């Protein structure tokens, strides 16, 4: 199903780039103060903008009638009303989660352990895995769970971008919407039940990750 693919791609991208961006925003002093503040507010943009507007922005930017969209389509790469667009829309909505989860943890642990590692001869990559990662690990896992939950449930942005073409660009949530629209309540209930069960599971995982986070 579409949903699973989107969730996997989105979570993977968000985890890697979210942690990277958080690291840069907190640690890199070669980024100017002003640029940092700008990036910081950009990260929050998806929280401020309604998901539907976010989806619309993608359609307006990359839709078949725009320059970029036409170019991509010419190259045989369809963005809007297809998987890439839906992934993009979900990414847009969920991107702040990981950054906002990891940044406070990084700020709290401070740079000193990392500096100590560097005076002991460890280069950044080694330091990240041996020193930084164990401290932010549970924050990242919590962020992953939240991202999965949010991508599963995302509806607004995806609906705009997907065009909701049956059996092609339909996610679990838009399917529920579709079924309800068509008075197909039984089917809607079925899918909704699966989603709800999954959410409950995620909720349990969240609680567990949160507890571990507090221990460390």
């Amino acid at each position: 199903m579409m949903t699973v693919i989107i969730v996997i791609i989105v979570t993977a991208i968000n985890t890697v780039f979210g942690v990277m961006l958080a690291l840069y925003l907190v640690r890199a002093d070669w980024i100017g103060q002003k640029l940092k503040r700008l990036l910081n507010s950009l990260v929050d943009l998806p929280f401020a903008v309604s998901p539907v507007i976010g989806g619309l922005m993608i359609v307006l930017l990359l839709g078949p009638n725009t320059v970029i969209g036409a170019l991509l389509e010419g190259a045989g790469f369809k963005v809007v009303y297809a998987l890439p667009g839906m992934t993009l829309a979900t990414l847009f909505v969920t991107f702040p989660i990981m950054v906002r989860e990891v940044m406070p943890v990084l700020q709290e642990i401070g740079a000193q352990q990392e500096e100590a590692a560097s005076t002991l001869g460890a280069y950044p990559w080694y330091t990240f895995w041996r020193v930084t990662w164990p401290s932010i690990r549970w924050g990242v896992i919590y962020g992953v769970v939240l991202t999965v939950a949010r991508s599963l449930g995302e509806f607004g942005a995806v609906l705009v971008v997907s065009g909701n073409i049956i059996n092609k660009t339909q996610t679990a949530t838009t399917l529920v919407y579709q079924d309800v629209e068509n008075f197909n309540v039984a089917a809607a209930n079925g899918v909704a039940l699966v989603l709800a069960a999954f959410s409950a599971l995620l909720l349990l995982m969240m609680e567990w990750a949160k507890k571990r986070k507090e221990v460390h």
Partner: protein
Amino acid sequence: MHIEVRGLNKSFGDFHAVSDVSFEIEKGKLIGLLGPSGGGKTSVLRMLAGLETPTSGDILFHGKRVNDLPPQERGIGFVFQNYALFKHMTVYDNVAFGLKVKKQPKDRIRERVMSLLELTGLKGFEHRYPHQLSGGQRQRVAFARALAPEPQLLLLDEPFAAIDAKIRTELRTWLKELIDRVGITSIFVTHDQDEAIEVADEIMIMNKGRLEQKGTPWDIYKNPETPFVASFIGESTIVHDIGRIKGFEEAAVWEGTTALIRPEYIEIGKAGEIRLQSATMEGRIRQLHFRGSEWLVEVDVNGTTLKTYRSLEKEAFHPGEEVSVLVHRAYLFNERDSWMMENRLKEDPMPIHI
């Protein structure tokens, strides 16, 4: 390691944290870096370690410029003020970190870590985590961890700041012995002048980003080069009107000259107790503070309050009591110059004990 620093500057924005600092340190010396808060001590250490880039100036190790060398390649051990132990690693893994980075064989690492733990008195603690240790134990782990990769220079930023006074004395004696034994060039930052005087071969005094003076504790104590150094070391009194102090009247002819008098150079006694009666002044005891091994006495003389010490073995004073006061020497300075002056009324110089 022989260290040389030339014209070192560091600005944070338009704030000058370190200005034009130059010094040289011989191999194997233990240097105390002393100064008030915000003086730029940590900034200097961080630049030596490569954790901060100097705005200008050169840092030379063994005569080779290392400004562009990253911290990983400088061969420096750094002990942070709050230790910065890896909190998710055991004591063993903390100490072994610098050796594992260098991919040394496992049994060599084990051998070195165990010998360091033995040396720092941490044997039996190797499986504990930092949060299961006392402050003093953490300090020693930080120390062992910094020493493990056999650095050529050890930098310690207020290593004893978070440790209570009693263990502190113990630890610093231990540290001095250890550094002597290992024979490593070391710089340690402290707020505490007693600590610096007791432990260091040489002291550097920093204030407002400037290096005020560098020398042996004895040198700094006896021949302070700037008013700041003179007032920083010891509980000295500043006297603006030096003409009021008997024996120093002629110093008053220099306009704007201020005197700084150390407690050690002031002698007080009951009438007849001081030999050089002719050079003494009348004074009145203002206050007494108990200092453990002696009294700190505040005495009013001609409208100025002087501070001095009085041994516990001698007869005690009481507030309000009349006493004789003799000032042996004063440290004088004005805008242009600073110098030491002996009491002119003393025929035979008294032996001075510090």
